[in-house]
């Protein structure tokens, strides 16, 4: 009888500053690997289709939807999840502006905003709008989220000026 063992692949990547290694199926999705193998449940499963943004994380400082990434693709990369943004300026801005209700979409928004802050620290209103369209919130009217994000960039610009 032919062997039906699943082929496993060794992957190694950095998650929130820690090196991690494990064996995965090629078909394993990064979102579920982070949640199930590492207990990093901050990135959520909302649609599994790349539409809602609740699974957003940073891969080499670029926001990506973890539901659209194979774990094997993360080999050698640096990943930052919402857990790695604890006490960050973006997180504080969201708290100050009460930019959440149920909180399910919040990690994705915070990570995406952090990604924008890294990639384009002088992002204008138009760029902020384009980036935030990657995430959906069903609870709020987006006003508080928008205010929080704008605050991050206003604070950044003030720091630069001074």
């Amino acid at each position, binding site marked *: 009888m032919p062997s039906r063992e699943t082929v496993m692949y060794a992957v190694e990547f950095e998650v929130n500053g820690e090196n991690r290694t494990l064996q995965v199926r090629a078909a394993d999705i990064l979102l579920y690997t982070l949640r199930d193998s590492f207990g990093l449940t901050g990135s959520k499963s909302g649609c599994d289709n790349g539409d809602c943004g609740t699974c957003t994380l940073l891969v080499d400082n670029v*926001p990506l939807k973890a*539901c659209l990434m194979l774990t094997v693709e993360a080999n050698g990369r640096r990943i930052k999840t919402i857990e790695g943004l604890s006490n960050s300026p973006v997180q504080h801005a969201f708290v100050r502006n009460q930019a959440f209700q149920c909180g399910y979409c919040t990690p994705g928004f915070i990570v995406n905003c952090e990604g924008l802050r890294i990639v384009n620290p002088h992002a204008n209103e138009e760029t902020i709008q384009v980036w935030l369209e990657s995430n959906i919130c069903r609870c709020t009217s987006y006003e508080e989220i928008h205010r929080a994000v704008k605050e991050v960039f206003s604070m950044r610009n003030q720091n630069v000026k001074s």
Partner: protein
Amino acid sequence: MIPFNFEYYKPLSVEHAVEWFQLLQQQGKKPVYYAGGTEIITWARTHAIRPGAVIDLKAIPECNVMDLNEDQLIIGACVTLSAISAANHFELLSETASGVADQTVRNKITLGGNICGNIYYREAVLPLLLANTRMVIAGIQGLRESSIHQIFAQKLRLENGEFLVQTRTDRSYLSLPFIHYKKRQIGNFGYPLVTVAALKKEHQIYTAYSGVCSFPFRSALIDHTLNDSSTPLAARIEKAIEQLPAPLLHNVEGSARYRKFVLKQTMADAVYALESR
């Protein structure tokens, strides 16, 4: 979650990619080429496809170049749409690419994936059709370079085991006057109702369309009609609509009738905008 297993390969060269495809196919493993993977992952998750192996092209150097030299703009098929927009070497392509999906997904969708995917909008191909881009294809016979018009008919016509390596666009097209209009059912992201891309070269307007029929296209017949300045614009538009290469799409984004209405207005806007430039 993808409920079945497949094998994963990440070749470092064009030759290895082609060789492994042939070998895996001979082994009956139904290989597919993999770049951004957004389409493959979502379709595998819903059981729409079931590859036995994926060959990830992202480590192949030629697939990752973005080089603007004296003569042409060369873009590797694995370059993401967001990188293309950010570099902005070809403004029409930047704008078209930035209308696909949303920003975060564009960080994963590649030029090659958008053009070669099975989702029929393939919007990133519109500027390439207009710019008479040349396509570099890898296959068992090695590399070949063809005009996009010789190998793109509704979709990229590749032989078994071939994949798109690069696109090469003549520099003379990159800064021509252009327009890009993407009309959606609602909001600022998502699939198009109608996308019209156009550029003007030597006093002639050239147009390309996505979302109108079940494939993106450029039509010499339509362009000839739209450029006939002896006829009033409204009459040109009516005639151009009759010259569509296939029936208007009728789907969840909009009915054929509504598409026709939107297309007429968008065509008129495009011609009006470019005629004056």
